[in-house]
């Protein structure tokens, strides 16, 4: 790391959240280790620890995958059991990696990691090309509406850095991905083990004209990933200071989920339908003229109308419809399958109700993308198109339009566990 650290530059950086998916032997941990190591995000004491462990395992080189090594069970079994978060920064951007394991049974972790990501790295072994797991990972990334997918064609060293091998994988992938709605797909041929095209180019693939993986991560355009069109402000809580200075202050605290709210805008509170105007947008460091996603602010209105947690402020000419029957793509996350006719707590933004699965239309075969009709038995890691009936109207948007207001989770009241994640269609 350079000695003269650019403080101002650091303050101006954007944040990119990405998820990584690959099967057990695709070299995913090695790739992440390589990104961290080559971008100098690993400290000396960590390097020493990994050097020691590598030696203990009888390896000649430093096993980069050990940098992402987690809990005891994982170290003993050499597997990843859960989503782990990693952090690194370059002078251009700050990155959060949601590192998710790729085994068959861990769809739920991948969905979890993907839910907050702007970008997905999908690893493909250059020798094997597009396999079932690649398809599954891509499908989940597209289902979760991750705007950018980078396909890392890894282990190029094992195919003699051949352009032919690379082109073959690109074609296979492109043919497959055409069936899905993915906006931005890029391909990078690399060897995570030797470092080619991860952080530095190396000299083995002069035929490749694109940038390194890191260069792509640093430059991909992400600021339009939020919905700036449809104003949605789910109220988290009401702030009433009860102090002399702010005696009549009644502020609605929340995080903008969509659109741009301006001082003076006329707004409607749902579900009541009562109208008012934005009096001010408050933060502790001063009032704002406007607020946009994903800012956390406090809004005061001109009229004293009754608003509480779970309500949403919107513009009068752009209102989501309150729906009690929701069409949802559901990912089941729990080992116990749904109980017939059971009611679950449904959480949607800050609103909460109870809901029942009233119909299972089809399950997805996530390897072939075929619809499985007639199989109504939902199990852990299944993805199914279902109908939910909620005890009260929820003001949801399509997930494809807004990932915040289009997503729900189901909580089992008997165990309090989060059992399913859903995307509104």
């Amino acid at each position, binding site marked *: 790391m350079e000695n003269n650290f650019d403080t101002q530059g650091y303050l101006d950086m954007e944040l990119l959240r990405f998820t990584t998916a690959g099967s057990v032997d695709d070299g995913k941990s090695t790739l992440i280790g390589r990104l961290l190591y080559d971008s100098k995000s690993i400290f000396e004491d960590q390097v020493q620890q990994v050097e020691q462990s590598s030696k203990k395992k009888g390896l000649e080189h430093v096993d980069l995958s050990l940098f992402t090594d987690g809990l005891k069970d994982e170290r003993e079994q050499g597997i990843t059991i859960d989503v782990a*978060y990693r952090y690194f920064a370059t002078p251009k*951007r700050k990155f959060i990696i949601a590192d998710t394991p790729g085994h068959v049974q861990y769809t739920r972790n991948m969905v979890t990691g993907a839910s907050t990501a702007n970008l997905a790295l999908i690893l493909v072994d250059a020798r094997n090309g597009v396999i079932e797991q690649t398809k599954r990972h891509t499908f989940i990334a597209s289902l979760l509406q991750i705007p950018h997918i980078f396909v890392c064609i890894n282990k190029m060293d094992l195919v003699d850095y051949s352009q032919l091998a690379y082109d073959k994988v690109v074609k296979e992938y492109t043919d497959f991905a055409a069936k899905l709605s993915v906006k931005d797909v890029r391909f990078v041929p690399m060897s995570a083990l030797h470092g080619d095209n991860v952080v530095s180019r190396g000299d083995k693939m002069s035929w490749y004209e694109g940038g390194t993986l890191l260069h792509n991560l640093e430059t991909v355009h992400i600021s339009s990933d939020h919905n700036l069109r449809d104003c949605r402000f789910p109220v988290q*809580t009401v*702030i009433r200071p009860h102090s002399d200075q702010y005696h009549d202050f009644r502020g609605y605290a929340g995080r903008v989920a969509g659109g741009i709210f301006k001082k003076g805008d006329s707004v409607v509170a749902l579900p009541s339908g009562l109208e008012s105007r934005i009096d001010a947008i408050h933060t502790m460091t001063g009032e704002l003229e406007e607020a946009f996603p994903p800012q956390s602010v406090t809004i005061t209105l001109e009229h004293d109308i009754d608003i509480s947690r779970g309500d949403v402020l919107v513009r009068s000419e752009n209102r989501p419809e309150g729906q009690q029957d929701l069409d949802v793509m559901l990912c089941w996350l729990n080992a116990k399958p749904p109980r017939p006719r059971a009611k679950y707590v449904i*959480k949607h933004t800050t609103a909460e109700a109870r809901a029942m699965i009233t119909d299972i239309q089809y399950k997805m075969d996530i390897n072939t993308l075929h619809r499985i009709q007639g199989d109504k038995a939902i199990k852990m890691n299944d993805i199914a198109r279902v109908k939910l009936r909620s005890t009260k109207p929820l003001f949801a948007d399509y997930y494809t339009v807004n990932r915040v207001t289009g997503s729900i989770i189901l909580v089992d*009241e008997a165990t309090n566990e*989060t059992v399913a994640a859903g995307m509104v269609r």
Partner: protein
Amino acid sequence: MSDYSLTHLEELEAEAIYIIREVFAQFDNPAILFSGGKDSIVVAHLARKAFWPAKIPFPLVHIDTGHNFPETMEFRDNLIKEMGANLIVGSVQQSIDEGAVIEETGMNASRNALQTTTLLDTIEFNNFDACMGGARRDEEKARAKERFFSHRDDFGQWDPKNQRPELWNLFNGKKRMGEHFRVFPISNWTEMDVWQYILQENIAIPELYFAKERNVIWRNGSWLPVSEFITLKDTDEPQIKMVRFRTLGDITITGGQESDANTLEKIIQEVASSRQTERGNREDDKRSESSMEDRKRQGYF
């Protein structure tokens, strides 16, 4: 950058404020675990921003090992006064006196591990159902797998294999009687983010973080402050060094490093060029490869 994008610090701040407000909305009796270290100071600052112009609606809970830097105590009391917040102290000394825990003895004795019992007792005694802390995922590998809303059973234990999936920004704080949550609003922050934020927001921190001449001994690769709580060996040579502390824990286990960083800007330069992890000087983490994981499973911070 377009007009409608946030810098990464603004985005992290917005996320943390959102989470703190969720805690307020979803729990009956939440608290902030306050150590006097920079991370918990930042959490307290964020809580203030989350509810402004109202006061922060949570008490601050300090688990007092009795082995504190005097500066940290003074800082704590001033901050509490300034924020108009409630302070609740859980005393490790009291746990020892009551026989709930047995104090370690010997050269490297520490009360670090004893804190868990006092912490869990304090949570139970006060009926806290959510305790917010300043832990960050970049600190340590067991922390990297931690959720924002981390569920604890009625023994306060963490089960890393059985965590609730956390999707989008939908947080599930539902629990049975007797269970509680630990919540980590700055999970996604790195050490550098915390320092940059302290600089940007002009947040007061204890002067121990700044380099100053201090009376120290060299032990296990770092400068340990000489205090009444530390047993000196014949070979120990106390000396005056320009030292600062990168993390603040118990005075018996927090090693300082030689440094001339006496301003926030200089600290940031130093952190940026540092080749050692922040917790590298913490004796509590050096005990074994999985010492943090083991302590966390039992209910540690």
